[in-house]
């Protein structure tokens, strides 16, 4: 397993995330997509810190951990807002939430 | 210091007016009149005390303003600017008196804006720092926009925004050119906006400013900026609308002073600062060499013919000023003593005459509440004095010798003929057409049988006469003794033509 493998995997993850975000018709799925994106980033960081930076330097892992934390926080806020949306619009289909436009 | 006082007294007046309660209208008017009268006195003093023999600017004040960019509050007057300052200061009180009765709503805001406008105009003519120059130039926009837009006629909003957009469009081009000049004027440390310095730099061999291509582009930038103001065909379409909609006093300022700001800029910046660029457009070698004169010619003929076609009294006068500004452009394009002096004199005289004309239109409009020329007729009997003054103004405007209009036009043409024979001869058509539309108007409004609707139209009253008489006297006096004004700037003009006219034997 070389760096390339990790990078390819993370790239695929990232792309899948973007794809999900762009295409899913459900807010939750979008959230999942976002999670995918973030995790691909984490994977990158870890991989880089493993292969690129000297072993004693663990910046990559630290960043990854912070990334996970922030992802969690984001997910929490996101879900809260999705609740609010559901209360107001009775739906969590993102394409139905479009009263603001133009 | 005197000069700065004159410039900012109206601004002070604005503050005072704003502090006054809006109910006490009479007081507001009086205060405004006072604060427009002080600059007049100062201007007259400057006009008399001005040393006619010296080239350099006088009463200079040069205080550092934004030293980081070497921007100074640098004002001063030379013969050219003092002339126009006098014109501005003179029209100030006259316009206030003219607005005495016929501004119904918001007299306070009106007067405040008017005072702000006057500061802008006076400052513009006195500024010797390019940045200051631009700031004052723009400073006249805001009040004008509101004065037309709020107190104007039925289509005032349209006229106001059109005026604003046109001028702003022109002035942003000017801004680019200005910044380019500033950046080219030297190394980061030594850059300057100082007009006299820039003029000397631009004519020193080998300096970056002295490069032909650079000057051509910068010339164009400034030129379009001023051309909108003059206005020069095809940037003129805002003028008739603005004039027709604006209240009388504002039309007077518009035609009397704001148009001159354009031509003044042409002389002060385009001619003095960019001799190479000017030469490119006036050397008569190829099409571009004729372009400036051609524009002047088009203005003259085009404006005159359009005026001939108008049936709205005010529009007619508006188009006639387009025509008359054409003579200024033609004279400037001649870039010799005779032509330039004629042009500048024409600037002053047109300021006075067109002011008279618009005041007269206003007088008639206040009585009849319309401006349809064909709607009148035979007023000559009912309003003899008004008819007399109108005849005087018309005759002056159509260039009757003995009145001020003639001298400027004649000199401009004489100067231009030395350079552009054909164009000048063709431009003389404008003289005939000018006579044609003014006489035709005179006939349709005053001669012939009286239109029964105006059986009891009141004669012009004392207040209106008060506004007109000084201008009338000026037209006659300057027609007989034009040197009163010419001597003011002849030295500066000689200097100017020397600076730029080194390309040819001075005619």
């Amino acid at each position, binding site marked *: 397993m070389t760096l390339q493998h990790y990078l390819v995997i993370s790239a695929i993850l990232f792309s899948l995330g973007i794809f999900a975000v762009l295409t899913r018709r459900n807010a939750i799925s979008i959230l999942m997509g976002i999670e995918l994106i973030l995790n691909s980033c984490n994977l990158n960081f870890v991989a880089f810190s493993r292969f690129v930076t000297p072993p004693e330097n663990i910046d990559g892992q630290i960043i990854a951990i*912070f990334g996970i934390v922030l992802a969690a926080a984001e997910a929490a806020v996101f879900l809260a807002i999705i609740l609010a949306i559901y209360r107001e619009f009775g739906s969590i289909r993102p394409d139905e939430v479009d009263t603001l436009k133009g | 210091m005197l000069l700065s006082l004159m410039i900012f007294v109206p601004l002070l007046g604005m503050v005072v007016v704003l502090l006054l309660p809006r109910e006490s209208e009479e007081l507001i008017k009086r205060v405004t009149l006072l604060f427009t009268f002080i600059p007049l006195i100062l201007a007259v003093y400057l006009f008399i005390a001005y040393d006619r023999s010296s080239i350099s600017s006088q009463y200079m004040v040069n205080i550092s303003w934004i030293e980081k960019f070497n921007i100074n509050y640098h004002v001063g007057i030379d013969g050219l600017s003092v002339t126009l300052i006098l014109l501005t200061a003179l029209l100030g009180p006259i316009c206030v008196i003219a607005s005495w009765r016929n501004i119904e709503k918001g007299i306070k805001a009106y007067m405040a804006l008017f005072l702000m406008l006057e500061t802008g105009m006076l400052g513009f003519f006195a500024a010797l720092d390019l940045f200051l120059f631009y700031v004052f130039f723009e400073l006249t926009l805001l009040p004008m926009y509101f004065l037309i837009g709020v107190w104007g006629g039925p289509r005032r909003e349209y006229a106001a925004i059109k005026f604003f957009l046109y001028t702003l469009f022109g002035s942003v081009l000017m801004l680019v050119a200005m910044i380019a000049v500033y950046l080219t004027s030297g190394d980061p440390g030594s850059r300057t906006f100082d007009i006299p310095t820039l003029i000397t730099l631009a004519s020193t061999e080998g300096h970056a400013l002295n490069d032909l291509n650079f000057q051509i582009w910068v010339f164009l930038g400034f030129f379009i900026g001023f051309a909108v103001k003059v206005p020069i065909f095809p940037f003129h379409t805002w003028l008739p609308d603005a004039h027709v909609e604006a209240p009388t006093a504002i039309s007077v300022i518009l035609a009397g002073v704001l148009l001159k700001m354009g031509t003044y800029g042409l002389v002060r910046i385009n001619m003095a600062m960019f001799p190479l660029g000017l030469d490119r457009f006036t050397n008569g070698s190829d099409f571009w060499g004729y372009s400036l004169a051609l524009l002047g010619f088009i203005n003259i003929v085009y404006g005159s013919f359009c005026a001939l076609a108008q049936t709205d009294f005010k529009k007619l006068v508006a188009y006639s000023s387009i025509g008359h500004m054409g003579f200024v452009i033609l004279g400037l394009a001649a870039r010799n003593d005779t032509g330039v002096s004629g042009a500048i004199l024409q600037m002053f005289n047109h300021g006075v005459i067109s002011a008279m004309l618009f005041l007269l239109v206003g007088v008639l409009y206040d009585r009849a509440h319309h401006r349809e020329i064909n709607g009148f007729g035979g007023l000559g009997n009912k309003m003899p004095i008004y008819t007399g003054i109108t005849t005087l103004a018309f005759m002056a405007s159509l260039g009757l010798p003995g009145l001020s209009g003639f001298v400027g036009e004649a000199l401009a043409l004489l100067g231009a003929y030395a350079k552009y024979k054909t164009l000048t001869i063709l431009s003389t058509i404008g003289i005939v057409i000018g006579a044609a539309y003014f006489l035709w108007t005179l006939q349709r409004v005053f001669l012939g049988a009286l239109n029964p609707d105006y059986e009891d139209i009141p004669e012009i009253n004392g207040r209106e006469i008060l506004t007109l008489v000084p201008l009338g006297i000026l037209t006659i006096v300057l027609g007989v003794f034009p040197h009163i004004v010419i001597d003011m700037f002849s030295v500066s003009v000689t200097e100017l033509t020397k600076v730029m006219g080194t390309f040819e034997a001075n005619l």
Partner: protein
Amino acid sequence: MDYKNNIESILYFTPEILLIVFAAAVIILDLFVKNRGSQKVAYLSLIGLGFTLVAILITNSTIADGPLSLFWGMIRLDKFAVFFKVLLVLATAATILFSLRSEELDERLKGEYHALLLAVTLGMFLMASSTNLLMIFISLETVSLTSYILAGFLTHSPRSSEAAFKYITYGAVASGTMLFGLSLLFGMTGTGDLAEISQRLPEVLAAGDVTGLGLLISITFILAGIGYKIASVPFHMWSPDVYEGAPIPITAFLSVASKAAGFALFLRFFYSGFQDEGILQTVDWGFLLAVVSALTMTIGNLAALPQQNVKRLLAYSSISHGGYLLMGGVLLTPEGLGAILFYLVVYLFMNLGAFYVVVLIANESGSEMIESYRGLSSRAPLVAVAMFIFLFSLTGIPPFAGFFGKWLLFTAVISKGLYWLAFIGLLNSVVSLYYYARIIKAMYFESPDEDESFSFSNSTFALLSVFVIPTIFIGILNILYNFSDKITL
């Protein structure tokens, strides 16, 4: 540059700490305040901001001899950071004052609201001063997360919830993308410190370990995150909707503070990371940014033209102003930097002022539409005057400060020969006059629908004048022109 370890750093970190403390204090006080209507919490947070400001100025005095790098190079304390901190404190204070007067804000959640505002400010402080990829990402997320909540603060209003939803979705994706870019950058250089990155990149580029494409991809991804903060094309699309949906004070806050913080990040990132020739040669960043800025201002202005909702109109106008600001950064020159900082100050006053007028009118007439501004000149003359000063300043007409700001920006651009960009910018200011003038027209040239005049308290006028006076005088008086010389990166 001397690195401070964590313990030493605490001392220089006082402003941020104060913000955290007061955020907590606000929440606690909110628990004890019986009368929900009372404005104690707001005043407490204002006091907190006051303390913070003092602290900032004190820290400022400590860096007289060169900037400091805190927490082992996580964040940097320099004039640049101080400048933005002061700016942000002012913006936040203004926002709190607006909120006190805004009638749409929910009474029940005052505590959280102000706590969140302070938290956002904290995040922005960090954005302005972070010099490490990790710090950059964390600060960005801090700001974003709190902003999402603030945008959706009107839980009872669908517009607000929708705004929050769009904001978070968009923000999450953008920041995720950015994080990916950051990870790539980290991978290329093996470090998170901007300074080191700027040293290493040329080497690795020269060594060929990294292709220009890789660099381009990572930077573009990062740009997505920053561009989303400063709402620059093509990452601007969230802002109109969010601005329209969010409570007006928050809109004001986002359009000024969040944008300023974004620019702080942008400047620090590009100025400190990309000055090196080697990097500049891989991709023509200057041209990229120039195109982006031209598109931003143009699209913002054009889209603003047909707007009937003043709030939304101002949202688009703030997009175009982002474009103007970007012009200064195009060439990464000191003049550009100075111009941007100066314009940010001006923009703070004139834009907040304009939004404040929107708040006032919305309170009185309950509408944000242009119609509700009809005849304002007769119903509330002073407010109308203030508004036209703000609008003409935004247009960039002398003698108002906006003109001088624009003038600096254009000078910076032209000095590097980008005439076309300057020209586009100036044409845009002509276009912008066109929609600002529609508000002026409504206020001055049209007669009001109903005649009874608005009544405003003196404190309102006092606050208004706080914005009007600088808008008039910053440009004319020669006071602020030189401060930017001291600020370097």
